[in-house]
């Protein structure tokens, strides 16, 4: 009746399940797509005029908004992972011969897909507001690569937080620091305009090199120093998230 089950096939079945969840949960899509656009309009149309960044503000802020769009989608992932764990349905999967990783991989992949949708929306609106990137086709591929890598890394970290949280509410709260991080980076204003303490934090926190990499790529002047730091941060966070997720998942099993 059944053939040999493979983790890959299980993952794609779980991914289809997660996709349906997302489409049916309008709040998730609102957070991932509409909310970053609202923030974008606020920063560009309301605050942006007062900021002096030496450049058209929309060109400065778009890379930061891409990162923010990614982090906004994370709350939904943490909540979804947690409700999978706290509702009985996870036990059903556990007593079946289903790949353990598949249950978590599905969430990471859907996080990445949601991030891509959110980022595409941001870029679309940015163009409508006069965004004028100088990026070549290769630079754009680099932008795509960074977005996917960051979503993947943040996705694993968020899955771990969702697993570690006791309730769905606290899982949503656990993702808040990740949502706040872009504000304490060079996303909206250059780090060297910030107060002491905050400035040092902004310079050394992971989102700054990631945002600077995106900024360089979109301006057509990629900097390899930032790019290496960005990739290193992403891989490090992904590994940390993965190890934390798997050990938490085993403990809760």
């Amino acid at each position, binding site marked *: 009746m059944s053939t040999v*089950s493979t983790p890959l096939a299980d993952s794609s079945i779980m991914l289809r399940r997660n996709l349906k969840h997302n489409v049916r949960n309008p709040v998730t899509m609102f957070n991932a797509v509409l909310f970053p656009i609202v923030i974008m309009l606020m920063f560009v149309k309301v605050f942006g005029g007062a900021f002096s960044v030496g450049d058209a503000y929309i060109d400065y802020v778009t890379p930061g908004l891409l990162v923010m769009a990614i982090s906004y989608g994370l709350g939904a992932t943490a909540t979804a992972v947690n409700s999978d764990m706290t509702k009985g349905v996870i036990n059903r999967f556990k007593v079946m011969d289903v790949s353990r990783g598949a249950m978590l991989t599905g969430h990471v992949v859907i996080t990445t897909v949601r991030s891509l949708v959110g980022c595409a929306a941001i870029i679309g609106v940015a163009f409508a507001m006069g965004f004028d990137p100088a990026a070549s086709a290769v630079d754009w591929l680099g932008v795509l690569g960074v977005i996917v890598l960051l979503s993947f890394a943040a996705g694993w970290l968020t899955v771990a937080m969702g697993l570690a949280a006791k309730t769905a509410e606290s899982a949503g709260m656990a993702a808040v620091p990740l949502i706040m991080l872009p504000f304490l980076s060079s996303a909206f204003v250059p780090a060297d305009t910030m107060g002491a303490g905050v400035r040092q934090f902004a310079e050394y926190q992971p989102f700054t090199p990631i945002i600077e990499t995106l900024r360089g790529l979109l301006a057509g002047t990629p900097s390899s120093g930032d790019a290496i730091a960005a990739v290193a941060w992403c891989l490090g966070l992904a590994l940390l998230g993965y190890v934390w997720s798997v050990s938490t998942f085993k403990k809760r099993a």
Partner: protein
Amino acid sequence: MRSSAIAVSGLRKAYGDKVVLDGIDFDVAAGSIFSLLGPNGAGKTTTVNVLTTLLKADAGTVSIAGHDVVSATRQVRAAIGVTGQFAAVDELLSGRENLQLMADLKRVRSGDQLVTRLLERFDLVESADKLAATYSGGMRRKLDLAMTLVGNPQIIFLDEPTTGLDPRSRRTMWGIVRELVAEGTTIFLTTQYLEEADQLADRIAVLNQGRLVAQGTPEELKRQIPGTHIRFRFADVYELDAAARVLAEATRDDEELTLRVPSDGETRSLRALLDRLDTHTIDAQEFSVHRPDLDDVFLALTDHTSTEHPSKEAIAQ
């Protein structure tokens, strides 16, 4: 003799100092219904979790469908289906999608047909395309059980499957369980409802404070409790007085106007009893044979728990 579907021996599990299962042994014959009874906190769900590979025991062996739960976990998982205490359905999927998900994960060929058959069998066709979040408690349980049946598991674990269901849904559930056993499935059932165990189970084990305090058929368990008696009710207190003089061994209840006479409940002794009343022309309005039911058995076997715990707490305070 039929082979064992489930064989458990010397099962122990403790969380820190708290011993949850303290050496449990039982066997379940293939194609039978085995019911684990016990008060809340007796260790029923822990037992189910160990048997269904969700939890590792500290000691003892568990063999499910001939496979050891520790060394052959995959084979065990392939042989079992589990319906837990809380309906494990995906609320953001429709009934049909929930079943399809199971069919996909179990790699069932022609899953569509199976899904349609299950929806029909569980009377869920009308709501098949509505989200499970909109289902009533009874419908969720039915969907849950239908999901468990995907892939035809040989052994099905039902952990309090009818808790919170109305009497009609409960009876529907019992009907389905009986059908499954008729098809050769083995059922391991935990329940708080003694009537349910009485109705369904071939064998019952009573779990109390992590130990099995009794095991047997429902009839065997009831026989362990002495106390079958005949109950007479009389029209007035004069009749009651007269009868009490004739039946000296009876205990009387003046408020209810009843006499309770210990008896084995067999026809010969019944006739003798009725003859004694008849020779004194005493007329009872009502008479009934009262056998101890599983409630009595349950209370008798697990009585000390309910009294022991509060006193311990009182001392601690």
